[in-house]
């Protein structure tokens, strides 16, 4: 699946987009898996209170939301447009 990072999450991870092969079942599982990839990921996901998630472009407030069959997951801080 495609994983997107925006704003300071992107800056901390060091990339805006990557293709991930995963067996994770939920958003939380994916975050745990990503956090093992390196210190940049650990830092980016160190405080999940500041992280918003969209699964296939829809906001998901429950981190136990399933991600099986999802095509794209995005992690970013609360939005500040307008």
């Amino acid at each position, binding site marked *: 699946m495609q994983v997107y990072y*925006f704003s*300071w999450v992107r800056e901390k991870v060091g990339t805006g987009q990557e293709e991930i092969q995963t067996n994770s079942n939920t958003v939380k599982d994916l975050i745990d898996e990503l956090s093992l990839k390196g210190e940049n990921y650990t830092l980016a996901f160190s405080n999940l209170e500041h992280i918003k998630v969209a699964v296939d*472009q829809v906001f998901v407030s429950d981190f136990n939301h399933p991600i099986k069959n999802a095509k794209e997951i995005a992690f*970013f801080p*609360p*939005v500040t*447009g*307008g």
Partner: protein
Amino acid sequence: MLSIRIQEDDFDPGLIYNLVGKDRKDIGAKVAFTGLVKDFFELEEVTSLYIEHYHSMAKTQLKNICQAALERWQIKEIHLVHRFGLLKPGDNIVNLVLASHNRSDVFQGGTFIMDYLKSDAPFWKKEFNRKGSAWVNQSLADIQKMDSW
């Protein structure tokens, strides 16, 4: 009529305002809102503002927000433009024009769309000045405004 654009280029708020509802005789009220770059916000003496966005989701979310407004109020036209990229103080960021029979529909619809856009549309602002840079934080007031609807 619903028109939504997300673009890097500038736009002309006055020109858009005059074009919306032109030649119609059933429009009694129009409202425009424009959000602009200020030279202060999280930082002082801001020299530029970078707007990042999640394009596909932003398009979907802006459309959803406008559709919700169309269902809730009697609105004939909505024209929304949001910019991304590197901007300077005084530059246009977002522009919204609504046209309707009645003034209360355009005022309420406009307030509603901007309140939801501030909390639900995936755009992020980073301010720059001579000393450094800072991502803008979402304000509690903005969350409360959206929740009040």
